[in-house]
């Protein structure tokens, strides 16, 4: 067995600092909410659909309350109060707000305990549905067997949900375990979730609840036929992070890209908005039994994989601590790592093996999300195919949880049908070839691999200690992460963050805390 001899003191110190970093946000998590969180609550209450001009009803209701300076009490209370006043469903209430027939703040408070009872009923129903979805997933794995390790994860990204389904089904039949529907460019910066089935996206397909449903149905069909449960994933990320998490929970997605800091660093979303949204979205994921996947790979698409290896480790530890805060168990923490090493580097395989082992051993229970070569992928598809093979080799050798298959056309276009098929063939060949190789090997005493892993760990530890000392927000403002400066009050979406009233209520937040046993 390949086993590192990691410096236990460093491990403990690094984790303690990461924990301190996460702990320092209780003021934000306790006292604030955001428009996206409120829209999420509305969605969970059953509000869906959009106005003729495409504006989704959750946004309509939320904006309505905001314009009346009433959001600080929480959107759910107003809707429930309206339900109580009118006897309508949440959806009907929202529609009336949309048509301008109803002013939620103009309704009397007849009986607050009835309103709370409505909230209790509505949220219980929603959570029951989510629980049903979770149990269905569990039952499917029970019936067809657990996911392989590493699981085969491929993307579809045609821009058209119907083409996506064809490609996804074909991939599933060829051996894919997880299908990711890549989002259209720039969706993460939309402060709403588009409505309905969509056929026009660029570089990906819009994440909409209807698209989730269509793809889930397609995959359920194949799952049954091939007797393997095919997981579905999307991005709970960007300005609508928690809304998409909720949509995923409702439509039985099984994993979610969901990073604590990605939006801040790579999408210039306001730090407070992002951290707050991730806190709530992760509770949804935790409750729904959805495996989160974090975005550490992104550091390496812009920075050097050797020089900045420690940023991956540091981010993994931070993501881990934030995930704990939202009730996510290690078994559902798909922490990110990426094979972005320069193929021209001598001993690239050896370096990468050190990094992959480090991730695996720091997070032995986590289904690590292992990302393929992208940065050094070139138009030479034959070479890229080889780089993907090395990636697959290491994924199997070190037992990463989820292998996001690289495509030989990575540098050219979003995957064609045959590209994906060849990628699956690549993975299946490598996985089989080195299946039990690990059991045959051990690290030589004083190996470079062990040294390298420990030195990355040491760098990550000092980095985390410095960040913990200074505070995450300050560190980000200074450009400590990915060389990108993100001031506390800069970026998109800060206007959507607000201080909660003492009367604020979010029935889901309360129930999640109880059910997930968060203090």
């Amino acid at each position, binding site marked *: 067995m390949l086993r590192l001899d990691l410096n236990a003191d460093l491990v403990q110190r690094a984790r303690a600092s990461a924990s301190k970093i996460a702990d320092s946000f209780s003021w934000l998590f306790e006292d604030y909410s955001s428009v996206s969180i409120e829209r999420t609550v509305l969605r969970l209450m059953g509000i869906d659909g959009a106005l003729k001009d495409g504006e989704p009803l959750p946004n309509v209701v939320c904006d309505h309350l905001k314009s009346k300076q009433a959001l600080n009490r929480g959107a759910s209370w107003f809707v429930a109060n309206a339900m109580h006043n009118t006897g309508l469903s949440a959806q009907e209430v929202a529609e009336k707000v949309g048509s301008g027939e109803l002013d939620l703040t103009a309704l009397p408070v007849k009986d607050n305990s009835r309103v709370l009872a409505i909230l209790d009923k509505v949220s219980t129903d929603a959570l029951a549905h989510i629980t049903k979805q979770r149990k269905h997933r569990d039952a499917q794995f029970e019936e067809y067997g657990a996911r392989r390790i590493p699981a085969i994860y491929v993307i579809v990204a*045609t821009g058209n949900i119907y083409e996506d389904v064809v490609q996804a089904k074909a991939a599933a039949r060829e051996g894919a375990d997880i299908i990711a529907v890549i989002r259209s460019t720039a969706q993460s910066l939309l402060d709403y979730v588009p409505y309905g089935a969509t056929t026009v996206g660029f570089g990906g397909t819009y994440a909409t609840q209807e698209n989730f449903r269509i793809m889930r149905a397609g995959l359920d069909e194949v799952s049954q036929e091939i007797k393997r449960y095919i997981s579905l994933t999307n991005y709970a990320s960007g300005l609508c992070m928690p809304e998409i998490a909720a949509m995923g929970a409702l439509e039985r997605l099984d994993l979610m890209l969901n990073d604590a800091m990605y939006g801040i660093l790579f999408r210039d979303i306001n730090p407070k908005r992002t951290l707050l949204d991730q806190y709530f979205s992760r509770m949804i994921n935790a409750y729904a039994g959805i495996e989160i996947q974090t975005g550490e790979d992104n550091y390496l698409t812009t920075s050097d994989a050797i020089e900045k290896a420690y940023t991956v480790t540091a981010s993994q530890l931070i993501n881990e601590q934030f995930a704990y805060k939202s009730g996510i168990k290690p078994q559902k923490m798909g922490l990110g790592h990426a094979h972005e090493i320069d193929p021209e580097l001598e001993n690239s395989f050896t370096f990468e093996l050190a990094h992959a082992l480090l991730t695996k051993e720091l997070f032995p229970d986590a289904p690590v999300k292992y990302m393929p070569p992208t940065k050094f992928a070139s138009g030479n598809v034959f070479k890229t195919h080889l780089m993907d093979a090395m990636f697959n080799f290491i994924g199997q050798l070190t037992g990463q949880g989820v292998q996001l298959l690289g495509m030989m056309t990575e540098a050219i276009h979003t995957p*064609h049908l045959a590209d994906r098929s060849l990628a699956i063939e690549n993975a299946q060949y490598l996985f089989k070839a080195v299946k039990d190789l690990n059991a045959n090997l051990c690290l030589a005493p004083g190996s470079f691999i062990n040294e390298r892993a420990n030195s990355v760990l040491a760098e990550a530890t000092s980095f985390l200690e410095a960040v913990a000392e200074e505070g995450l927000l300050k560190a980000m403002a200074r450009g400590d992460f990915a060389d990108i400066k993100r001031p506390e009050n800069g970026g998109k979406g800060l206007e959507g963050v607000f201080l909660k009233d003492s009367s604020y209520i979010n029935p889901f937040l309360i129930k999640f805390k109880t059910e997930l046993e968060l203090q």
Partner: protein
Amino acid sequence: MKKNIIRPYGDTSNDGKMQFSFSLPVSADERGKEAARQLLLQMGVDEIDVCSVRDLKEGYTHFIAYGTTSAVVDISKIKVKTVDTDVMSMEETDEYIKENLGKIITVVGACIESDAHTVGIDAIMNMKGYNHRYGLERYQGFNAINLGAQVPCEELLKKAREEKADAILVSQVVTQKNIHIKNLTRLIELAEAEGLRDKMLFICGGPRLSHELAIELGYDAGFGTGSYATDVASYIAITLFEQSHK
């Protein structure tokens, strides 16, 4: 587009996407790249993305490209010649021969001329067979004579005549400069000259052979990659029976 008119598929129905790889005697620069693009344009390819330009030295450059072809295929018009006899198991074939032909079928096989790749013909003829399917030697209904590698056409025909063969089995694996076409043609011409052509079935096989090509070359049948003794034995038995009843 009509349903029967199809084009390649990348990620949108009939988007015509294809991948190309080829070398040209040009320099590895913008001019060379443009030459590559021109070549594809002439082949009816559009939206060309020459995504890799690799200097092969000695004045050559390798290109990898993606593009959209304007070519379409009408699948309703596709006709392929395939061996259409039923495929029976060894036991069924033996039974069939016993019942319908009442004799042992003699076949003589060889890799002809310069070809020494016997694995293919052995897969069909030898006792052991291939991929868990026994070869003709194991069949009760067959007398299988395998002459092996690099057998001159003359020798194969001589043996076939001597043994009063019902079928000749020829394998051709090397295809460089179409040597297989030359060799297979030579055999048929000699057989015709010797008046043997209509006395027995002429069957050829090899990884670059198809039934279509075999027919074109004047053979009765051709078998490509992934053929088994079961295919060949069934074909021979059924065809001999049918011929005897014409």
